[in-house]
C-alpha cells in the first residue's frame, strides 16, 4: 500500500500537530491532529475494503491459437478479463506474460476510470517463446488507486496462470551473419595455395618470389620486404547427427559407436579447420545447433549434453519428399508413353494418380523450412549425416534434399556395428586426406 502525494502531506500535517500537542500540552491541537489521523486511517480501511472487492471479482480466461508451440514461433493469445469496477477507484489490469517470452504486438493492459459496474475486456496479443519447456502464464497484475492511496497486487492463483504453454525445442530461428564468407577461408597454416589476405611481412631472403615484394614498405624502410600471404582452405564440413527416438528400442551398441565416431570427427575437424558446426536432429525435429565452435572441450561437453535418444514431437511416418514424388510422376509419364500393355498401363496410371493425390494434399513440412533456415547460417561444401537408420528415415531425405539444393556434397553414415568394413570416421579421415593431398 502506497500513500499518494496528498495523503503524504496530510500525514505529515497530522504528525506535526500531534507533536506540537505533546510539546505544548494543548488539547485543541491534539483534537486537530487526532481527527486528521483518524480520517486518514478511515480512508485506508475504506480503500482496503474496496481493493478486496475488486480483486476477488477479477477473472481471466486465456486461449492460445495453438499449444504446444515451437520455440521462436509467434503465438496468438486471446484473453478475456472480467472484474467489477468501483466508484472513486481507478483500476489497471495487466495480463502478465509467461516467463521467457517476448511480446510482439497487441495490448496486454487496460486502465478503467471509476465505474461500479461489471466490466469485460478483451486482449489480443502475440508472443514469441524464446526458451523451450513448459511455462505457466505469470498471472495478472491489478493496480488500484484513489485520491489517497494506491496498491498493486499480482494474482497468481492456478486459474490466473492457465493455460500451460508447452514450448518445443527448435532450430535456431535467428540467422546471424556468418563471420566467414565465400567458398573458402583464410588460414595461417602452410599451404601451396595463396590467399588474398596478407598474413605478415618479413625481410627478403635469397630465393623469395620477387612478385611478393611490398614495394611501398620496402621504400619506406630502405629494405626489401616480402609479403606473406595467408593460405586458403575449404570450409569445414557440417556434421549432422540424427538421434534415435527415446520412445522405441534402439541398438545401444551402434549408438555408442555413433557417439564415438561423431566425437572423433568433431575433434579432427576442429584441429584441421579451427572450428566445427554440428546440427543435432531427432527425426524431423531440430534439437540444437553447435555453430562454428572453436573450443574442443566446449564442443565435446555440448555433445555429451545433447547426444542421447531424444523425444520426437513430430513424426513423418514415411512421408515422401515432394520433389521425389514429382520426379516419380515424370518417370511414370515417360513409361506410359512407351508402354502398350494394358495391365501395365493401368498399374502405372493408378500409381500416378496416387502420387498426384499425395502431392495435392501434402504440403511442404515445417522441418524442411527449419533445415533451410539453419543451413543458411552456415558455409560448407560437405556435410556428414550420422544416423542409426532405425525406424522411419524419411526425414533424412528431406535433409539431403535441402543440402543438395545448396550444392553441398552429402555423406550419409548409417552406423551399423554388424556391418564389416571401414568405420565412418576412418572413411571421413580418408576423405579429408584425399582432398588435401
Amino acid at each position, binding site marked *: *500500500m502506497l500513500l499518494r502525494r496528498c495523503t503524504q*502531506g496530510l500525514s505529515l500535517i497530522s504528525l506535526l500537530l500531534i507533536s506540537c500537542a505533546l510539546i505544548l500540552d494543548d488539547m485543541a491541537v*491534539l483534537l486537530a491532529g487526532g481527527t486528521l489521523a*483518524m*480520517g486518514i486511517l*478511515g480512508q485506508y*480501511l475504506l480503500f482496503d475494503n474496496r481493493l478486496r472487492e475488486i480483486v476477488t471479482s477479477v477473472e481471466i480466461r486465456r486461449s492460445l491459437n495453438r499449444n504446444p508451440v515451437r520455440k521462436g514461433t509467434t503465438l496468438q493469445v486471446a484473453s478475456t478479463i472480467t472484474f467489477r469496477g468501483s466508484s472513486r477507484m481507478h483500476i489497471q489490469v495487466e495480463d502478465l506474460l509467461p516467463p521467457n517470452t517476448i511480446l510482439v504486438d497487441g495490448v496486454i493492459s487496460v486502465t478503467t476510470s471509476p465505474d461500479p459496474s461489471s466490466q469485460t475486456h478483451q486482449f489480443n496479443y502475440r508472443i514469441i517463446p524464446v526458451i523451450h519447456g513448459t511455462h505457466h502464464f505469470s*498471472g495478472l497484475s491489478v493496480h488500484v488507486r484513489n485520491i489517497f492511496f494506491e496498491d498493486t497486487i499480482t494474482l497468481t492463483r492456478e486459474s490466473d496462470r492457465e493455460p500451460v504453454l508447452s514450448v518445443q525445442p527448435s532450430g535456431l530461428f535467428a540467422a546471424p551473419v556468418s563471420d566467414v564468407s565465400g567458398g573458402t577461408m583464410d588460414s595461417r597454416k602452410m599451404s601451396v595455395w595463396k590467399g588474398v589476405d596478407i598474413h605478415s611481412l618479413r625481410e627478403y631472403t635469397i630465393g623469395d618470389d620477387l612478385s611478393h615484394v611490398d614495394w611501398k614498405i620496402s621504400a619506406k624502410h630502405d629494405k626489401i620486404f616480402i609479403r606473406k600471404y595467408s593460405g586458403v582452405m575449404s570450409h569445414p564440413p557440417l556434421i549432422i547427427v540424427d538421434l534415435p527416438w527415446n520412445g522405441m528400442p534402439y541398438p545401444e551398441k551402434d549408438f555408442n559407436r555413433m557417439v564415438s565416431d561423431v566425437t572423433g570427427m568433431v575433434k579432427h575437424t576442429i584441429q584441421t579447420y579451427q572450428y566445427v558446426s554440428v546440427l543435432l536432429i531427432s527425426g524431423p525435429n531440430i534439437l540444437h545447433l553447435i555453430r562454428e565452435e572453436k573450443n574442443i572441450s566446449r564442443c565435446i561437453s555440448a555433445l555429451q549434453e545433447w547426444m542421447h535418444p531424444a523425444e520426437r514431437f513430430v513424426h513423418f511416418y514415411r512421408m515422401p519428399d515432394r520433389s521425389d514424388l514429382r520426379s516419380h510422376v515424370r518417370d511414370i509419364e515417360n513409361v506410359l508413353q512407351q508402354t502398350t500393355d494394358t495391365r501395365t498401363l493401368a498399374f502405372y496410371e493408378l500409381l500416378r494418380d496416387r502420387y498426384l493425390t499425395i502431392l495435392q494434399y501434402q504440403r511442404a513440412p515445417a522441418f524442411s523450412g527449419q533445415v533451410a533456415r539453419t543451413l543458411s547460417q552456415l558455409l560448407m561444401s560437405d556435410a556428414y549425416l550420422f544416423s542409426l537408420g532405425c525406424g522411419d528415415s524419411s526425414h533424412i531425405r528431406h535433409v539431403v534434399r535441402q543440402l543438395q539444393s545448396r550444392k553441398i556434397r552429402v555423406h550419409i553414415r548409417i552406423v551399423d556395428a554388424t556391418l564389416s568394413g571401414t568405420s565412418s570416421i576412418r572413411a571421413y579421415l580418408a576423405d579429408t586426406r584425399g582432398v588435401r593431398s
Partner: protein
Amino acid sequence: MKPLLPEYLFFIALAAGVTGITLLAGSPVWYLNVILLTLLLGIMVITRTWHDRGFYLVCGGEPLVVACSTINLWAGLFTVCMLAGIVYGALGLCESRQDLRPFVLFCGSSFFIVLVIQLSNHVLLPLLILGSITAIILAIQSVRAYQFRKLYSGA
C-alpha cells in the same frame, strides 16, 4: 438556478456555526476566527481546479479547527465535521447516500476523540489511547492483508 455545490453548503454551515460560537463565547480575539474563515473561503475558491485540492483545504481549515477548539472542544468538533464535509464535497465523495456513510463514521470517531480529550487533563493519556487503538487496527489490518495476499498472490 444552479444548486450550490456541497462544499459551499458545508462552508455556509461552518461560517454560521463559527460566527455563533464566537459571539456566544465573547472571545477577545473574535476577529481571528473571521480571518481564518475568510482564508478558508479564499483557498476554496482559488484551488477549484487544482490537483490535491483536499490537501490545501485541510491546510486552510486546520488553523480554524485549532482556534475553535481553543474556545470550546465541542465547537472544535463541529468545525472538524464541517471541514470534513467541505473536503468530502470538494473531492466528490458526497454524491450519493452511500457516500455519506464514511462521513458519518468520521463524525462518530471524532466525537469519541473529543470525548476522550474532554475527560483527560493532559495530552499524554488521550494520545496513548488513540495511539493504541490505531496500532491495534493497523496490526489487525496487516494480518488480514498478509492472509489476503497469500491467498491471491501466494506470497
